[in-house]
């Protein structure tokens, strides 16, 4: 047996706890400047923005930008895709369940979220995708695409409508086994997760997000009998495959009342009228949306993902009031987002949250001049360019452990309140490689068909032009402002020292890599 000699470089892990005490924390940061507050806003409710975008939002004002974003239908989104309609690439008639179609579907979503001007909507789309956490394995790409479009359309709308609409997408019906469910012997997966994950949560909550206690013990929101009764009332839905001209419309959902037990149904301590038609699920979802635990459960999750992993009771209850006051409003979620951002605790959470891996990657491509190759047919032909670019983005996020449509379980990539679990040694390895690839690919190379090409990259020539100077300190200032709000003293001095007085292009690229892999950049 070959035995590896003891590696004396080891021990960094064992040094983790020590390192926290060996190195004194830096003095508390000053109050964020107005520019830093805008950068904070763009990190949390957008996939970050370039220095030029930050300038624009500073000029516009945060509140006006938020209003503009929340009125998302008025924002021109025509440039958000690299110009190809989805049908051609998400076509089960051409390639049923084959890999290129999955790439194509993911490409559409990744590209849109990167390039769309509707950034708050895109960030909310991410939130809801993580909330519902459907894994695309074994689901047909058109179904996943339509599910994503449903989430996007409702991301800033009404919560009950969002959940109801998602519930009857073929993707969700199939994912949580409600497709073909029969009331006489139902499987209860959908009914359980509808409450546990998507609306009320397991335990009863006070309006400030704390648990209701009975003799010191938490109180369940539901018991097995509730789940079973609701499962029976939500049975009868079937996903039907209709092979037609439009592959995106190949799947439809039917309702068979003979497989459902509706009418007067008892659950959660009362009798409820559940129609014996396809609105049964919407009726139950609407009931759940008005349950007292739903608002604090959903608001806490939103705050933990967007603001702070430890929201105060006051923050939760303040936002819950907005949630409840608008529970039937068509723009309920937009109003909730506006209230979250306007709350004093939003700016107080400056640099208090870790970034998700996907935010690091999309952020790098948006804060620096990220590029994707324009569409043109390739001679080697298996993928169109835009598919390949999307595939690359998907691959890059996969390397860091956050491939959007492949969450590992029903909690998605992390349990809200525990984003730090995405920051693993494996993710760091992936991250260093991802940022190397993004920089290595600039300028574009020609051989895109072999997977080494420049389909998505940080465009260094454009970056240098944007910096507009070869002076080392100016380069440092630009990069640190663009990526880390100016950076901590330790990072600043390191980058300035590394760049020297007149850095060459490779050194500037190295500095970009250094900052992107810095602890500062991991901070949201």
């Amino acid at each position: 047996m070959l035995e590896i000699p003891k590696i004396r470089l080891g021990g960094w892990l064992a040094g983790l706890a020590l390192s926290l005490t060996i190195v004194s924390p830096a003095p508390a940061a000053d109050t964020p400047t107005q520019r830093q507050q805008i950068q904070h806003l763009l990190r949390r409710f957008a996939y970050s923005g370039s220095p030029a975008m930050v300038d624009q939002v500073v000029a516009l004002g945060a509140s006006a930008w938020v209003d503009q974003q929340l009125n998302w239908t008025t924002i021109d989104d025509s440039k958000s895709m690299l110009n190809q309609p989805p049908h051609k690439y998400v076509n089960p008639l051409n390639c049923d369940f084959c890999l290129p179609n999955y790439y194509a579907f993911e490409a559409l979503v990744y590209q849109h979220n990167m390039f769309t001007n509707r950034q708050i909507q895109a960030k909310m789309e991410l939130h809801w995708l993580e909330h519902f956490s459907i894994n695309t394995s074994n689901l047909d790409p058109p179904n996943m695409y339509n599910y994503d479009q449903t989430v996007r359309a409702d991301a800033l709308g009404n919560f009950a409508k969002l959940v109801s609409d998602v519930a009857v997408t073929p993707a969700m019906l199939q994912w949580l086994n409600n497709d073909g469910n029969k009331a006489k012997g139902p499987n209860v997966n959908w009914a359980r997760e509808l409450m546990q994950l998507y609306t009320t949560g397991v335990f009863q909550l006070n309006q400030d997000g704390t648990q209701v206690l009975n003799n010191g013990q938490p109180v369940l929101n539901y018991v097995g009998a509730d789940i079973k009764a609701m499962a029976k009332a939500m049975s009868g839905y079937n996903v039907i495959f209709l092979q037609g001209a439009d592959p995106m419309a190949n799947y439809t959902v039917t309702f068979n009342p003979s497989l459902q037990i509706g009418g007067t149904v008892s659950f959660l301590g009362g009798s409820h009228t559940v129609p014996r038609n396809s609105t049964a699920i919407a009726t139950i979802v609407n009931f759940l949306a008005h349950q007292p635990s739903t608002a604090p459960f959903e608001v806490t999750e939103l705050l933990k993902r967007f603001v702070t992993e430890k929201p105060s009771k006051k923050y939760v209850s303040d936002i819950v009031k907005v949630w409840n006051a608008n529970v039937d409003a068509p723009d309920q979620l937009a109003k909730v987002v506006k209230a979250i951002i306007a709350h004093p605790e939003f700016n107080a959470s400056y640099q208090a949250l870790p970034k998700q891996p996907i935010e690091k990657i999309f952020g790098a491509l948006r804060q620096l001049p990220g590029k994707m190759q324009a569409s043109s047919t390739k001679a080697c032909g298996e993928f169109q360019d835009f598919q390949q670019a999307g595939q690359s983005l998907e691959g890059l996020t996969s390397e860091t452990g956050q491939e959007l449509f492949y969450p590992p379980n029903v909690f998605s990539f992390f349990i809200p309140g525990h984003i730090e679990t995405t920051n693993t040694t494996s993710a760091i390895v992936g991250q260093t490689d991802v940022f190397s690839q993004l920089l290595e690919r600039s300028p574009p190379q020609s051989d895109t068909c072999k997977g080494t090409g420049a389909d998505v990259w940080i465009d260094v020539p454009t970056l240098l032009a944007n910096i507009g100077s070869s002076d080392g300190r100016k380069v440092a200032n630009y990069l640190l402002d663009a990526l880390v709000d100016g950076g901590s003293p330790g990072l600043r001095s390191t980058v300035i020292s590394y760049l020297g007085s007149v850095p060459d292009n490779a050194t500037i690229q190295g500095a970009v890599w250094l900052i992107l892999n810095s602890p500062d950049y991991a901070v949201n």
Partner: protein
Amino acid sequence: MLIKRRSFLQGLAGAACTPLFLEAMSAEAATNNDLIVVVVGLNGGNDGLNTVVPLKQYGLYSQLRSPVGAGDTIAYPKSQLALTAFDSNPAHIPSASTEYAFAPAMAAMRQLYSTGKLAVINGIGLPSAELAPQSHFAGWSDWSTGQINVDGASIPPGWLGAALATLPSGALGPTASVAGAELVTASAASQGLVVGRPADFSLNIPYYFPQFQLGQAFQRMLSAAQPNAVAASARSVTNATLGAVSAMQGYAQLAGDYPTDLSDLGQQLLSIAQMIAGKSGIRGFVAVSYGYDTHSGQNDTHPGLVEDLSVSMQQFYGYLKAKKLSSNVLIVTISDFGRTPSANLSLGTDHGSASTAFVLGDMVTGGVYGDYPSLKTFDSTGNLAVNVDFRNMLSDIIQALGGNAKAVLGTTYPKLGFV
């Protein structure tokens, strides 16, 4: 093109400031004889009833697993179970066994059982079904922490991570997950290493970067005071990553004669085998197999899952045995919960209570532990009654590690006796 990071690492090592890892070199090292525990997670809630079938209750089993109106069954025919039948005495051959049977696809597990080194623990789960919301989150965190967690806001460390935190381990730290961030291997201070494949655990930096200087700058950056807790945490994980790169590249060269054509679980166990073969000093590992949440069409997936589990465990244990590395390795399975006794009309099973766990290793006294739950009378939630508190099994393992089971689990348990 991308090249390896040798110059970069030289820059790190040559930096003027003291590398942080040197601060940890005084940590007590593990010996080659210290017990290593490998947790295999069956994510989704494994159906114990279709994993180990109680032959003495076969009639009830068949009835429960054949829902009226389905026109089909998920019960295994008795004839199929004959080849994988077993008794409490591992020496009994299948044809002489009348007590239990592994799922027909678990022939490899049956072979492991016959070695006398596999413990089958029946009726295991949370002691009070009422306490368990039967959610994946609660179930997985309970089995990962060894505590019944009713409040998801304050999750304790993993039982394996917590037990090993106070015990000797190698320079890379006490635990590693090959399945992404997993709670069971996390301690209060650290998530532990997360490794995909050792071969992939490397740094690629564009060749034309001034790498030595970049390495120096990186070291300087990581040595600086961090502006906030989030950055400090990120720095810690980055340090851990850099500290493990060279070792992982070495481990990746090992176990070249491990079986090929591996499943995902098999690949994870190969990665663990490489780290064990490399004497990494890591004493707690976790691998996870997904897909056990079988609400519908269970017989389309579950037989394949338990076959994969059986084959992967046999490959792993067989490799360690052949290399004389098995004497101090213990493999244990955990899952969220068991599943309902009755099948539903989707021909699946829903979240339940008691299930079955396996413990495998040279030091294991093979056989059956725990009474099989009755298929006639159920607990107050209508599920299989729990006869063995899951923490009892964990307690035995923690004690075998030399850990303080009471400190980790909050109380003491009588020994089950499998180790």
